[in-house]
């Protein structure tokens, strides 16, 4: 199976799974984006991934004011969620954007982007640039 990892792609032996979580940080290290893949069923939808995340964020107090939406990413349907939270010891709130989509049958993708509230505008611009420019690697 052809697999991409950063600047390279290669064939993985049968049965191997990509369990990497990709991490990207802005130059000033104030913004952070992670992309993780997870095993899902053949009929999985982006909502299958996002609904449990939204429930978990709400149950733990991190998603009380979350807003959800839908869009297209890399030509496939995508669920989005934006939330913010501030714990008692925090100087300012944390903002997090989450996007879920199914890039390939059997594999779900969860992208998160976070920053403190003071960098919210830069975060929003960064996540928009990433999602709007995203495309799927053929046969990978």
């Amino acid at each position, binding site marked *: 199976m052809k697999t991409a990892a950063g600047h390279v792609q290669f064939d993985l032996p049968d049965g191997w*799974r990509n*369990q990497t*979580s990709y991490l990207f940080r802005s130059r000033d290290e104030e913004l*952070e984006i*992670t992309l*993780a893949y*997870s*095993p*899902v*069923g053949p*009929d*999985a*939808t982006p909502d*299958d*991934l996002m*609904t*449990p*995340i939204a*429930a*978990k*964020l709400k*149950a*733990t107090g*991190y*998603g009380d004011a979350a807003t959800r939406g839908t869009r297209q990413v890399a030509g496939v349907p995508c669920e989005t969620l934006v*939330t913010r*939270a*501030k*714990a*008692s*010891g*925090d*100087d*300012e709130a*944390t903002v*997090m954007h*989450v996007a879920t989509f199914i890039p390939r049958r059997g594999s*779900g993708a*969860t992208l*998160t982007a*976070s920053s*403190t509230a003071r960098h919210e505008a830069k975060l929003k611009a960064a996540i928009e640039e990433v999602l709007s420019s995203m495309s799927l690697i053929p046969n990978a």
Partner: protein
Amino acid sequence: MPTLVPWVPRAGAAAATRSGAPVSRDGSQTLDREVWPVIMVPGIMGSRIEKADRSDRIWDPDRTRFMMWLMTQDPNFLTRHYSYRQTPGATMREIYDSDNNAYADSDSAERAFGRSRNDRNWGSVSWEYYGPGTLAIQRAIASQGGMVWCFGYDWRRPNQDTGLALKNFVNDVVRPTSPFKPIIITHSMGGLVTRAACAIHGMESMVSAVIHTMMPTHGAAECYGSVKGGLMSGAFGYLIGSTPQEVQCTSSGVAGMYQLMCNNLYPDPTWLTLDSRLSAHCDPPGPYAVSDMYRMLRERNGMVGIVRHEEFNADVVNVGSNRYVHNTQRALRNILSNIDLAEQYHTSQVRAYCHPQTWLIAGDGKETTVGVNVGFTQRTYHGTPLRPEAPVSLSNSTSGDATVPLVSARALENQSGCQGGYVTRGNDPHSGSVNDSVVIPAMIDLIRTARARTATRW
């Protein structure tokens, strides 16, 4: 025999959270006595842990950004992440504020100890859960020489292992700093850790006294109900899932949690009711009784047992919403090992152990899960009966602290080592109780009492 009495704040107790340190003419505070140690041992999920190679966090409630990210991670990842066997951990060492700056010690009475809060291991416990309470205790006793340490630990590990680490902490780290044996104050599962250290690893003679707060001595009904039923409530809110399979997978690496399930000695045997029709569908067949709890947890068809073994032995489990977890044979092995460790802890190693100088604080008046009912349903498909199911429901009362039923928190009350203590009402629920303004003065009161009555020198 001393018993627990309702906690009524005494005159001046409310001021116990303020510093009473004597102030000299130049404004500096002074210590007029020898230093005596107090060790705070937190409950499950109350310690901050990172990967053993210090490369990344595993659990850090003080870092909102990390916790929010963690909540977005899928159950396949979390099953490995929360497993101490697959993802070895170590406690974090430094206290940081939200801007990544180390906290400065600000209290002059503390500075007189010559050891910073980081030196005293405060960075290992969650400030969010334990900071205000620990600080209040420190401020109340600093002027008398009371020096508070924290013992954070990898709460995913079995309490037997953590008990040994606590004993070594007392002997190697705390002992050289004071002529007095420490007073240990515990919260929730920290009580099980401390009792393991004393009963299994010989720490009993190394401590002056033990104060247990909100301890699930013989377990809490909610723990069995949450794992078996996949219920999104209570102390395990962060290990939650929307289905039993998800909770069973993600918690399979948390041995400590299995030791919080009700055991054979649980004081109220009516906590669990089982539909009689379940017995015929169990493997091995029933009946099952709460007096043999560990046989029940191992039952292979998942009727009364914690998981259905056949499902996990397929090595991939659909945990709901089309999300899969791989390597579930390993998860099942971990679960069965966790049950073995819990059985050893509660039936042979620790049982109803009570340090000879023990005080208790139990919370009451909060909506608490005190009972679990496992029902029976069997649907049919065109007249053919399908595999039976065992739906779980919880029953609540106000007899407890929102997590630990009162009967479990008071279970050591009749042991000869119990010196008494308090039942608090009107305080925050279990997980927040150490920081609560009702519980803090009660803890300080018992620390002072223990100090006055039982402080012993090495």
